[in-house]
């Protein structure tokens, strides 16, 4: 059939639809400009900036202790890991060696954050493909982690528990007991997730072979975290460049080679198991010692450039500090995992249906404040 071109971008059967900034599937304020032919996606253009708070610029104003609390507000689902990234960068620049206790506690809390994040993602994933009950089952289990955080750090989401040089205060006496309780509880609930959603034939049909991303594309788009690992790209920073106490634990890097939405889904489910294994290895032998080393009240980084990367729940978070020797960074850049993962949305969604777009966007596990910063 001959198609008449209305302008350079549109064919006559195609139409344009605005998904977001307020849309249930965009998890926040992401705006997607979709070009659709019937139900088939022809083009996806993400439009960002609706929750831009210029965190990087604010960091240039703040002292190094104050920067940490801003990172809570970037990827709020893995706020502890973000905090850890900045603290590690500052500690490496100052060449401070933090006590073993701090390293172990940071790792435990980081892995718990990862479980909490993946857990929430699982609930939302179910909701995006239409199974609304998953959300509540996920929140039931996530609530236990939040309680652990609240008891130790005082906050449930934006903890700000790490400071350059260690932790703000020691763990709560109940911490070990509660974490063990959670692990026993969650080990019975995680198989239930599989029975309810993973094995469901409708879910499998929705996920398998959808949102294909080859390893080459994953690397060239800069995908990291479960998105990259779902395509067989071994990119776990915890394995490649271990930080904190991660070099002392044994765990498997969750890796799938299929590269479809279901592979990314499976990677996250397996990561929850691996994170539990890491916590189990560390929780019984938290070494005694100080929970922080004394730093100067005003931290001045030596002149130079410093980079630290960590593995957040979404992928590789890089903190790049340029210091001129003053108490504020000259420039601070966050390499956020969500931004590069979002950039491949067009690549994996084109050719699919609207439902596929929603499902594959859910497997990217986007947190919009992380993308916009």
């Amino acid at each position, binding site marked *: 059939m001959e198609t008449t071109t209305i302008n350079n971008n549109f064919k006559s059967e195609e139409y344009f639809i605005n998904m977001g900034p307020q849309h*249930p*599937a965009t998890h926040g304020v992401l705006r997607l400009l979709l070009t659709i032919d019937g139900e088939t996606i022809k083009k996806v253009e993400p439009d960002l900036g609706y929750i831009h708070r210029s965190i990087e610029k604010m960091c240039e104003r703040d002292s190094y202790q104050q920067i940490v609390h801003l990172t809570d507000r970037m990827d709020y689902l893995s706020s502890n890991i973000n905090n850890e990234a900045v603290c590690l960068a500052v500690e490496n620049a100052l060449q401070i060696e933090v006590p073993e206790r701090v390293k172990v506690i940071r790792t435990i809390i980081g892995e718990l954050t990862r479980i909490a994040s993946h857990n929430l993602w699982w609930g939302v994933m179910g909701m995006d493909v*239409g199974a609304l009950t998953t959300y*509540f089952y996920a929140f039931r289990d996530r609530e236990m982690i939040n309680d652990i955080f609240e008891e130790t750090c005082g906050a449930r989401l934006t903890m700000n528990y790490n400071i350059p040089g260690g932790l703000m205060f020691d763990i709560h006496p109940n911490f070990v007991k509660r974490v063990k309780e959670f692990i026993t509880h969650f080990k019975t609930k995680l198989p239930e997730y599989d029975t309810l959603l993973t094995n*469901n034939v409708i879910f499998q049909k*929705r996920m398998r072979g959808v949102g294909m991303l080859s390893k080459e594309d994953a690397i060239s788009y800069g995908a990291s975290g479960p998105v990259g690992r779902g395509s067989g790209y071994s990119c776990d920073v915890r394995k490649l460049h271990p930080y904190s106490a991660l070099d002392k634990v044994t765990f498997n890097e969750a890796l799938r080679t299929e590269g479809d939405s279901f592979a990314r889904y499976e990677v996250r489910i397996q990561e929850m198991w691996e994170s539990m294994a890491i916590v189990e290895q560390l929780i019984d032998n938290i070494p005694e010692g100080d929970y922080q080393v004394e730093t100067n009240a005003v931290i001045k980084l030596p002149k130079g450039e410093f980079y630290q990367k960590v593995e957040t729940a979404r992928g590789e978070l890089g903190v790049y500090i340029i210091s001129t020797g003053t108490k504020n960074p000259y420039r601070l850049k966050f390499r956020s995992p969500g931004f590069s993962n979002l950039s491949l949305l067009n690549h994996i969604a084109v050719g699919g249906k609207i439902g596929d777009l929603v499902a594959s966007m859910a497997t990217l596990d986007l947190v919009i404040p992380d993308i916009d910063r």
Partner: protein
Amino acid sequence: MNLSLSITKNIHDWLFNMMPETLASLVEMTLIALIYLTIFAVIGLFLVLLERKVAAWFQLRIGPNRVGYHGILQTMADALKLVSKELTGTVNADKFLYNLAPYFVIITALMALAVLPFSLEFQAFDINIGIFFLIAISSIGVIGILLAGWSSNNKFALIGAMRSGVQTISYELSVGLSLLTMILITGTLQLSEIVEVQRNGWLIVQGHIPAVFAFMIYMISGTAETNRAPFDLVEAESELGAGFHTEYSGMKFAYFFLAEFVNMFIIASIATTIFFGAWLSPFGITESLPWLGVFWFLGKTLILMFLMMWFRWTFPRLRIDQLLTLEWKYLLPLNLMNIVLMALIVWLNLTIQF
């Protein structure tokens, strides 16, 4: 007048003694219409409450529990709120069709309600092509949805409406064929006679294997007919926001909402009538008290509706092409095979009768 309006014979006779025949018929019809409107409203409101409660129990929640005893008046309060809300709309909407659409949906639901045999004699309109009438009426409802989506001047609503069209046209077929399978046993389309046939055993027992298949196919396609999860592509919250009723507010939205729940009731009651003996009690234990039939009917319908709610709160949604694959590649061929099987069983007199 040919209508067998026989809810209560006494009122019927009394009215016809009191006034001329034409007037009496009019008054009687008005009365019956009012009764059915009440049934409609009560069923709608009760089902919304039930759905919310059941959903809450599936999801480890409590559900509405503030308005009235254990939240029993919650939906009444919601309805009051919706009545008092402003009726908004889009600027360039096709105003006439936009306003017409909710009535299409609600009137078809009401019409289907009229032929359901709630109990012996409790049936407003015992037409001799009952099943055929139900199938025909239930396809008109989709016109309301299509109009709503088209006239809203909203692309999300339009996508929802188009999906609805595709979905209903496909699944009509399965609903019709699975009911036809059972018609092979009864040999009649009239609902009251179908019930009479089942005095020798419910049709799902009489027809055994093919009847169970037919029932499964009917429940799947019936769920799809009512646009409920896992077939709720028409609304598809995470994809289209609210689908065809995105631009509706207040009472107009409530009409769609109520109609959806009443349609669920209708689908479940057709299943009750065809497969589970309508108002007949199991083994005839309350045969001497025919008025108890209403409770048997509602009880059976409630169980089937619970099944549909169970589907909704467990399964993810299908994609539009998978929805069509399920219908055309699985349900339809199976259905046709099932009809042949049923025909063989009826021909060879292999039905189980007590």
